[in-house]
């Protein structure tokens, strides 16, 4: 599975030879190898973070735009041009004259040229306020992409207002607990066989362990903000994330059992060389992973911890300014990390889809399988998974907290154990190690290519459809999912005895 873009190796070899030749003969010569290693590692980390942040910028644009389009709205149209177009013709005047040493003149010239070419003075209409409502910006100006940058930068200029009686130490620490653990996950996620920050033997264990730290920070944030809403939000978050951590880990265990290793790169290599993606071998696992990941990153329908309806903003009500900005970015980083994990586990990471079919198309096959680097495939698959996340957010309401926990413990946990058993059976009985190299490990010796994944996929789809058909035409009297301490409805509403005095509510 040689992907031509081996970034890590290039970096190391290039720096190694450069430093050796440069430091040859100087006292530092024998340290050249070590310095090359350090420099290569940092550059690899920077490139991996760069790819991740580019993806993050993309999803922060795609989510609001796609959701707005589903809502029949135009969505964001702020584009680069708004930097020099100002407001409806009102601009900040010749502000560059204030830059010392006359260094502002080139900026002024650039501003004038940009306004002439595509700004106030040009024929390209910028986004007017009201009169051309239907116009939503030229495509090449990436309408809406810049909005996330504007939101992010705005948080920097906001005043930091911690609540007076908050537990200041934990109030300050918990956002960084969440943000740092989220950024740390990127270190273990490979984007291609040659692009990764670090590739330890058990990288899956590392990644999921770090993924589980953030709920602790969420609970601390909720508790320390000295606000009843955030307290309830924090407790809900703690309960929900523990309820969904276990099915998630068991599902991932199933994948690792099937692929035979705890290393991301080996899992992907196994999927490629064995000839079938885990999606086809463990469709139940794919479904479980998506559901538990939506719950892990607290998105609708598992949105209870920050349910705007009753908890104002949930656990981050008391955070404003840059702390809230970073928490907001951290939430989307966790979503993006979840999408990449899903792509790597189930959709065969950086291996091109339909490799076999496209392979025998001559030039197109060569471009498809070899010329397109693995990173592009990983990103495309992650974006596809992200569309599922946004689709779920746009169409489903929130599930109540006790129903989330009930669903997690009573349905997902047994299902994930069943999925683990399926993985073990597939690995032991149907897997043929001889065909590993030639991509025919799953054809069951009959030569019919990947017989097993096809059968597994068809069987599980059939089971799913059979279960989802609702036999009884008129449904029984509606199911009740309300389990309350005091049976609901027993309180005779409006009975005069009800206490209606203002009482101890601290009214003025």
């Amino acid at each position, binding site marked *: 599975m040689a992907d031509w873009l081996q970034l890590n190796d290039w970096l190391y070899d290039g720096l190694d030879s450069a430093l050796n030749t440069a430091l040859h003969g100087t006292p530092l010569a024998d340290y050249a190898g070590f310095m090359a290693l350090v420099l290569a590692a940092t550059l690899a980390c920077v490139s991996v973070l760069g790819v991740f942040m580019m993806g993050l910028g993309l999803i922060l644009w795609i989510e609001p735009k796609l959701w707005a389009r589903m809502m029949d709205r135009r969505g964001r149209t702020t584009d680069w041009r708004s930097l020099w177009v100002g407001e409806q013709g009102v601009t900040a005047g010749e502000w560059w004259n204030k830059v010392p040493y006359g260094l502002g003149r080139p900026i002024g010239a650039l501003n004038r040229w940009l306004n002439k070419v595509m700004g106030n003075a040009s024929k390209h209409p910028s986004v007017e306020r009201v009169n051309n409502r239907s116009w939503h910006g030229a495509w090449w100006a990436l309408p809406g992409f810049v909005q996330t940058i504007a939101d992010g930068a705005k948080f920097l200029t906001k005043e930091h207002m911690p609540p007076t009686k908050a537990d200041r130490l934990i109030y300050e620490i918990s956002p960084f607990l969440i943000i740092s653990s989220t950024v740390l996950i990127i270190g273990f996620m490979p984007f291609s066989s040659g692009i990764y920050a670090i590739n330890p033997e058990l990288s899956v264990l590392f990644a999921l362990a770090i993924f589980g730290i953030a709920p602790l920070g969420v609970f601390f944030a909720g508790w320390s903000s000295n606000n009843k809403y955030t307290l309830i939000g924090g407790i809900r978050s703690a309960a929900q994330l523990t309820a969904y951590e276990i099915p998630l880990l068991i599902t991932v265990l199933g994948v690792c059992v099937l692929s035979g290793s705890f290393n991301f790169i080996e899992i992907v290599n196994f999927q490629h060389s064995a000839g079938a993606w885990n999606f086809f071998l463990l469709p139940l696992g794919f479904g479980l992973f998506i559901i538990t990941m939506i719950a892990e990153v607290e998105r609708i329908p598992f949105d209870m911890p920050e349910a705007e309806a009753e908890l104002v903003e949930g656990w981050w009500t008391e955070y404003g300014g840059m702390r809230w900005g970073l928490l907001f970015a951290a939430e989307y980083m966790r979503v993006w990390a979840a999408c990449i994990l899903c792509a790597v586990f189930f959709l065969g990471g950086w291996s091109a889809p339909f490799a076999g079919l496209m392979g025998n198309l001559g030039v197109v096959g060569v471009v498809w399988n070899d010329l397109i680097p693995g990173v592009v495939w990983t990103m495309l698959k992650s974006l596809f998974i992200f569309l599922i996340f946004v689709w779920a957010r746009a169409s489903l309401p929130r599930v109540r907290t006790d129903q989330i926990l009930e669903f997690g413990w009573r349905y997902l946990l047994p299902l994930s154990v069943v999925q683990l058993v399926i993985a073990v059976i597939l690995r032991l009985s149907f897997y043929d190690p001889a065909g590993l190299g030639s991509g025919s490990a799953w054809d069951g010796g009959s030569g019919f290519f990947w017989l097993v994944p096809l059968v597994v996929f068809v069987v599980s789809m059939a089971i799913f459809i059979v279960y989802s058909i609702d036999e009884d035409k008129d449904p029984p*009297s509606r199911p009740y999912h309300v389990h309350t301490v005091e049976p609901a409805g027993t309180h005779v509403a*409006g*009975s*005069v005895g009800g206490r*209606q*005095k*203002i009482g101890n509510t601290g*009214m*003025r």
Partner: protein
Amino acid sequence: MGMKISSKANIAAAKSAVEAIKSRFDSVGVEVSSAQHASGHKRTYVSIACPPAHWLALAKWMRFDGGVNHCSMITGVHHPEGGPDKGWEVIAHLMRMPVVDQKPGKALVHDAAKLSGDDVPMEYEVVLTLPQTDTPVVPSVQSIWVGADWNEKETWDLVGIDFEGHEYMMRVLNPHDSPQGFHPLQKQHHLRYHGHNEMYDDAQGFMRLPVDVDKVK
């Protein structure tokens, strides 16, 4: 054609309701009559003038025997120049609604034309007049119709007519720390710029200004 209670059924129902109340309460000075709306379909309704002392008895009878199960509204009116025996007025609007609890999966669909007897919906207007007094008091029907609960609170809050026997009487619309005797709908209070030009008539210092009020915006 649509759902329609014939005016004949309406008049018959009103007459029977008036007879029932008259037979029970005539001796006690409760005048009952069936009046008619002035415009539209000219529906007849039962109009009762009841001395405040008998209001509780009348209410209990109407609720449990007359089938009047809905208290629509209780209004208080202040008549400073209404002569010695008409200082305050409490008007209660009640309704008889053919509503019964339903079993799950069942719905009671009335056919307007075939309704008869006590099932015909009927409007009641009970007028209680109080003499000129500084402390108007009327017995409370909170325990009979739950709907009357917040109506009475609002009437005391805005007009100042007290309801004896009303639990947890509190201000519901005006701020909780309005001055003690301040009931705005009494006629001695005027609208601003209508014979009363003071900006706000209470100096409780509601207007706590924010800390950055002097800063440049």
